[in-house]
């Protein structure tokens, strides 16, 4: 299958390894990955912070970059949720009928990585090997907006050598929340501290998630604490081979 990669602005700029890993996994499974160079950002940061007007050009840009693909994959549950839930709404509000049509056509084809693998491609074993103890943080948007369920866990359980330990209170938010972490830094830090404690209680070497944003947040705190736990995107683990 020819699959377009929406890498997201955060992964593109700060976590390119996650993006490269998506390419490697899909390559290995025999699919053709294309990267529309015009893409930038889904507009979630602005939309969620209340700058609706500034997110509209990004919705338009997304539609222009990704029109015509059968499947679009993104290594972010949060951005996938933004596109699927709110792009149609914003396009509708803009009054631009052409844009609304384009968006309506594109959004059902946008898949978060683990959903693409398990639901669209029907794969749980991607041939990965990662002999480490790993715990998985299900991001809020993956759980409660996209409802990807245990798809990431099924993928991780199929990775050779991987020792998966359950994260206590896994479904509780890590406290990132985009600009929430800046506007309410104390509450955000308190939530993050509890998440870090839960991660440490598992004894895992690696914290994994399907969103770079949560990993940036929890990883930033773990690094400050010199906790010795590495953060890795799900794609990076799935790309690992012996």
């Amino acid at each position, binding site marked *: 299958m020819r699959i*377009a990669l929406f890498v997201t*602005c955060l*992964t*593109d*700029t*700060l*976590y*390119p*390894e*996650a993006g*490269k890993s998506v*390419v490697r996994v899909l390559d290995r499974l025999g699919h053709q*990955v*294309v*990267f*529309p*160079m*015009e893409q*930038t*950002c889904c*507009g979630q940061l*602005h939309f969620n912070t*209340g*700058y609706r007007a*500034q997110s509209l*050009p*990004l919705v338009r840009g997304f539609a222009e*970059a990704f029109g015509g693909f059968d499947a679009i994959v993104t290594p972010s549950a949060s951005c996938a949720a933004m596109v699927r839930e709110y792009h149609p709404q914003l396009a509708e509000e803009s009054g631009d009928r052409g844009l609304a049509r384009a968006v309506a056509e594109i959004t059902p084809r946008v898949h978060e990585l683990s959903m693409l693998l398990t639901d669209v491609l029907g794969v749980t074993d991607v041939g990965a090997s990662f002999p480490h103890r790993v715990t998985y943080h299900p991001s*809020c*948007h993956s759980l*409660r*907006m996209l409802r990807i369920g245990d798809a990431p866990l099924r993928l991780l359980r199929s990775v050779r050598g991987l020792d998966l330990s359950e994260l206590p209170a896994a479904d509780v*938010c890590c*406290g990132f*929340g*985009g600009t*929430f*972490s800046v*506007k*309410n830094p*104390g*509450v*955000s*830090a*308190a*939530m*993050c*501290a509890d998440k870090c404690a839960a991660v440490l209680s598992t004894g895992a070497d690696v914290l994994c998630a399907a969103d770079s944003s949560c*990993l*940036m947040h929890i*990883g*930033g705190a*773990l*690094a*400050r604490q010199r906790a010795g736990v*590495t*953060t890795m*995107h799900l794609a*990076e683990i799935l790309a*690992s081979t012996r």
Partner: protein
Amino acid sequence: MSMPTYLGMPAFPEAAAEALANPQLRRNLAHATGTIRTKRAAAVAELTDWDELRAAAKAIKDHTLANLDHYLLQLEEKVTAAGGQVHWADGAAEANAIVASLTRAAGTDTVVKVKSMATQETGLNEALAAEGITAIETDLAELIVQLGRDRPSHILVPAIHRNRAEIREIFRREMPDAPAGLTDDPAELAAAARSHLRRAFLSATVGVSGANFAIAETGSLVVLESEGNGRMCLTLPETLISVVGIEKLLPSWRDLEVFLALLPRSSTAERMNPYISTWTGVRPGDGPRAFHLVLLDNGRTTALADKIGRQALRCIKCSACLNVCPVYERVGGHAYGSPYPGPIGAILTPQLRGMSSAADQALPYASTLCGACYDVCPVAINIPEALVHLRSLAVDSRRHARFQTDFPAERLALGAVAWTLRGRRRLAFAQRAASASRKLFGASGSAAWTRRLPLLGGWTRTRNLPVPPPESFRAWWARTRQDDASPDSPPEIAPGLPSPGTAPRQTGSGTADE
């Protein structure tokens, strides 16, 4: 609308910081919300048709709101026919004045009250006090709050921020008839409240209540409670005054089969709360001889006019969203500066009060948008959607704001980011600049200067910043797989690209030690 008692309170971020500094408060909240979360999940899991009940409740409420004028008139007609009197209150002051004058007309200066959100919202107790009328709160938690000269911090359990030892101290200090040797055993504390309030109940001439539901078809009012203080207030006084928000209507008696299945399980995690009272007008020989229904607007019609925001009016005040909210659990209810705290408060309060103050503009931002609230809401209020919508209204209203806040800086920053993201060349340029600066971030992004950044200081106090990678994803792609670029994308022109040289690493987290 106005919520008189909350004027001048600090905005959420400052109030939250204060609450976070109180470890006892955080322990009390974590204990109480943790307890109720587990129980609620079990009570809800018992009903296999929860989703259908929830869908029905949402549909009934939406239908009622969409035809609210019709149902209000029907309710008025039925209550009047059953011997009650209906009053309409535009705002808080008017509602309070109606209650005060009805109380005086009944020839008393004391009312007994059953917990009601509507009268907290209007600041009724303070308004009555100004008229020389004493309002006695009879719900145990409200009594604790009133005796402690405190504010409620939870919709269902207003004293959730107090533990048993603190409550014992409040009773010993403020309750003259508290038994000597009172311990902090909840059963003993409840018994002390029982004997303290007994005389007030038995001699009351005016009772004041709210209502959980008002049935348009029959003119019936419905109050759910646990202690029996509600039954006392609704039954023993000669005059009963119920202050009810106009969003509390249900079309038919039958609709209770949905809401009585949803509300107790969502709020107290019970199959049914101990007492539900329904009454229709007055009943000769049983209960009050006069019944007054005060229908309260106080900003509700403003919310009703907002197509996204109006879903907040479906709320049946169960508190499930508070109990699952990770933000509420850490800061408690006071930080929200309103009788409606937590996620529902963050969308209800700014709509009822308007968005003119910094405090009300900050409320929609008091959430990570994690969505736990929407999941548990028995009437399916999409709180994250409403929060994001209200944030955009806050941004719009700030454009015309006079007061000084961090918003100009935020607007500039987000404006710059938006400009950068509007074209791939701008983004690529910014990425190269970031990559070039990566050495400045120090080992794993902990360089000291990062802690003095405007806007980001709160982040970097406890978290490292991500270190920009040597090359962005798109630079890597352009360098290694350009041929695979989609045909309609022109090749990325990347002059001055930092020499890559480094092989792709297997573990690419920017915050990991380099």
